[in-house]
């Protein structure tokens, strides 16, 4: 086939209608404080891993709540690669809403990375 140099662009839009809520519900059940986040970014600011890599825990949190699991599980989306977290727990210390952020990472790994 002749290569014309075109490719199909996949949509960047989050489609909540085709979202699968099962993993989300499992995460909420395992870590109820997951829902309390107000998106302040305190966790990301203090993150040990975030100082040396592009890991962003707040973003990982919101991708999960919008059911974008593939973005978390895939190696290509490196700033939310859950394996970069070192589980130091500083994020839990600074969270103004008492979200169990460390537990959240562990649970997300369990649900997504297996």
């Amino acid at each position: 086939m002749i290569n014309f140099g075109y490719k199909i662009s996949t949509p960047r839009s989050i489609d909540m209608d085709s979202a699968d809520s099962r993993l989300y519900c499992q995460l909420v059940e395992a870590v109820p404080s997951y829902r309390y986040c107000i998106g302040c970014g305190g966790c990301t600011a203090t993150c040990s891993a975030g100082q040396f890599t592009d890991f962003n825990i707040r973003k990982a949190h919101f991708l999960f709540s919008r059911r974008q699991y593939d973005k978390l599980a895939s190696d290509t989306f490196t700033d939310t690669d859950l394996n970069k977290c070192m589980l130091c727990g500083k994020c839990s210390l600074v969270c103004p809403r008492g979200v169990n952020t460390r537990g959240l990472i562990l649970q997300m790994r369990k649900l997504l990375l297996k």
Partner: protein
Amino acid sequence: MKKIAILGAGPAGIEAAAVLAANNCPVTLFEKEAQPLCNITDKAFLFPNFADANEVAASLRAKLDNPNITLRCSTEVTQLTPSYIAGFQEESLTGTPVWKVNEELYDIVLLATGYTPFDAHRKEELGYGIYPGVHTSLEMEKMIKEGNIVNSLGEKPKRIVFLQCVGSRDEKSGNHYCSKLCCVTAVKQAIEVKKQLPDCEAYVFYMDLRMWGQGFEEMYRTAQQEYGVSFVRGRISEAGGTFDGRVQIKAEDTLLGRPLKMTSDLLVLMVGMEASKGTRELATQCRICGEYGFAQSKDPHLHDCQSEAPGLFVAGACKRPMTLTDSVNDGRSAAYEILTSL
């Protein structure tokens, strides 16, 4: 004895009338609607403590039971002019101007003509009046009050989306200001929805959540923790109807930096507060009309219940968006200012 007229039998007007009456000042209270307190009695519950709106209104209405208060409902005041503008000769004994209220003369007038909800038709891109699934927060309140939250097909909704800042903080609507109580109202309504329909998803789209009052932030937290209401930071840019009578919305999830779309049974537009028609017209007639058609007080810090016009006082949401608590307190302040001016 000076004649006092209060225009508007809302929380501010009634509280002012009650204080003046208790101090042996006869007042005439004008109300354009057939009943006082229409902006309270159309609510189900009031933030932040979910007080029954009817009970709160009844307590306020009971204050009118005083022989010094003459309540004139279904009487719209269309004319409010001081003698120095109208050019007529009557002056009170002290030489201060008298005020012509419709065809009657009064020495002192308290403007408490309140607000009107923003007309959501003006935000055409949000589909109000075009798609049956799009409602205003007032219509949602009515459904909550009647215990009958249904989608456009009359079925129980599976998802409800609330959109903040409709007609507020919006240059396109001509309103740069924040209406300040829509944030907490959406949280309140989302909680009510979850109480009545626990399986219904509730999303609140916001630009900022301004939980400024006592107990507001706690309500926001309760909505997340106990009721599972989801909050998305982003302004819905457009809404479209679907073939099955629902609404598809488009927004950006600004915390992820990605566009987001979602279909919902209902889209609830949290409409802001604008100066009421009476406020605009009367404030203009007596030359105290300020920004956005609201009545302008003499000074926002120390003389907030007085106006530049002698004998004319201002109270409540005719000045700016106000909560019930603020309006009642402001009416009381205005009554004090009137008493000290006598």
